[in-house]
């Protein structure tokens, strides 16, 4: 397991409503750990990570806005920005 990284989680759409904030800085080694930290700080986002360890189907997660991922074991690097948004991204 890698070392802990400080990353910023940005919230868009429904996640922002549920979180009650635009962003949150957390320390985590993996995406899964980062989202667990989000759930602890933002109770409105409870259920973000399902009991089977996967991202809930009505959310999407992007790393730095460049690519999307569903692999919550992915290690984080310092300065990463995680974008959490509604799955129904379109109109």
């Amino acid at each position, binding site marked *: 397991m890698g070392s802990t990284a400080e990353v910023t989680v940005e919230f868009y759409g429904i996640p922002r*409503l549920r979180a009650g904030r635009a962003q949150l800085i957390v320390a985590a080694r993996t995406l899964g750990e980062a989202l667990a930290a989000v759930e602890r700080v933002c109770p409105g986002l409870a259920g973000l990570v399902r009991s089977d360890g996967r991202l809930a189907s009505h959310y999407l997660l992007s790393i730095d*806005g*460049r690519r999307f991922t569903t692999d919550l074991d992915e290690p984080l690097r310092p300065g990463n920005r995680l974008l959490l948004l509604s799955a129904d*991204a379109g109109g």
Partner: protein
Amino acid sequence: MFGYHGRYLRVDLTRGAAEWVPLSAEVLRRFIGGVGLAAYLLHRECPPRVDPLAPEAPLVFSLSPLVGTPLTTSAKFAVAAKSPLTERFNDALSSSHFALAAKRAGCDALVVVGACTAPSILLIDDGRVTVEPAADLWGLPTDETEERLAGRLGPRFHAAVIGPAGENRVRYAIISHANRHAGRGGLGAVMGAKKLKAVAVAGTQRVEVADPAGVMAAARDLSQRSFGPATAKYRELGTVANLLTFNRFAALPTRNFQQGMFEHAAELSGEELSAARRIARRSCAACTIGCEHIYAAPSPLTPLPRSGGEGSKQPSPLPPGGREASKQLTPLPRNRGEGSGVRGASSPPSLSLGGREVEGEGGEVRLEYETLFALGPLCGVGDRDMVLRAARACDRLGLDTISTGATIAFAMECAERGLLSEPGLRFGNSDMVLSLIHRIAHRQGLGNLLAEGTRRAAEVIGGGSADFAPHVKGLELPGYEPRALQTMALGLAVGSRGADHNRSGAYEVDFSARADRLHGSPEAAQLAVETEDRAALLDSLILCKFLRGVFEDLFAESAALLARVTGWDTTGDELRTAARRIVTAKKLFNLREGWTPAEDTLPARFLSEHLPDGASAGAVLPRPRLQAMIQAYYQARGWDRNGRVPRETVETLHLTDIAGVED
């Protein structure tokens, strides 16, 4: 027959005749309803190579087997015609009580051909057809037209209407019902060319379903699921929530697609709009989602704010004496078109404030992301009140907000490049946006050119402007930056009605881990096809696309719904094939009308200019990459390398009766 009347009503306005035409169960099962049935009927009713605005060009209103059932979001109707904007197949959807009343009127579809000699309304009451004069309505905005008709006809009738833009044959005029719009491709111009101000329907003929208890149980289940997280965005924020998200991904078309981010995105965001201007949330008839977020557009009788973009630096063309001196009621500009001689005495006043023509009053307006992006960032306008006012003006005048915003943005870039001369025509000048909206609807001055859409305008303007005219097949692009969403770029390029976000949902692929949104690939073509097939099914059933997230397996679950309504032993595989059939039927129509492979592309800008900003910085979609994706798409569709439909595919999809088979 369950779920259907088994017939359509054909009205010939020129001959003053109406007839019922049978629809067999075999045809209905192949094409389902909605857009699918409309595609079949256009093949049958539309003379090849017809001028879309000629009397003989048909206008089709198509219902579906689910209309009138308690299934949530099923109160919808499709409208289809050969588009005056693209001269290709065009369909658009709207919803609510018109759909319910039209089905009760006794038909599965209404086909209108011919034209009236004077402004008229078409009344269909339980199958009885009459045409009444409408000179008193000609010139009225859409909402006032519906109000007048409600007063005249009573609450049994529900009307689909056009505004002044449709009367004046603006090539992207809409058809409206209860502030919901069959918006794209100029269907309102087709109706206006027939001198039809409104189609009003009423009836009492209910269609039986095969399994009433089963339908009721399915309706309860679907409604319950519609309250869940899959529809939360639509319910709680509306599609305007997309704006901030797209901006973050640098996928927000800005200043005529020159940028993917807008510096005023935060002020225009759904979150800010909701906090500052939202006044209500509403639903279509028979809908449990409630996606319609209503905002307050400020009255122009109060002092107007300055525009928020760089246009605020531009001096407005104030007349001598300034704003106060010019505040006076002036008559609307006379129509250039045929409607000019018949406008009623009750035409709404236009107010001249500081040299600008603005709508006569503020009020409430429904706002969606597409309207917000097109009248805001695309035109460089960051003032939310001016965007709200512009949106309301488009709705009332009967203009497609996407094509309106895109055409104005295109004109702004032309002016900044010295290709057009019009004082104040610059990105960010929200006063100019409002002024042009009115001039387009009335085909006045520069508005007359812009009423033709970007493709035709570029042909007149020249100077290389076709390279940045934002359209595919003549239809202006929606709010998805193709270089930042490259699977969606494929969907936009190959769409039968042109650049379209409602017939291809390929942006869902880009917003996923299944594809690299900045490097489109042939492998993503199959995924794009699947989004088109899902859209074709939803548009034919008809169910709202905002419901799509509640289905685990759309095809299998839809088959179960359809079986309960029709009594057919429909399967998911059958509906998957039906969806592919409907997509190919639309392509066959385009082939018949002269489609060539060169039409399946994007404007040169997207293939050569790099996006400058943010999370999509450097993105471009080189032509060879797009071509490889298009080839993969054709292959996945069973079409040949030239995008034509081979006999084998026609036969496999059971389309021989409508196909001009291409070998």
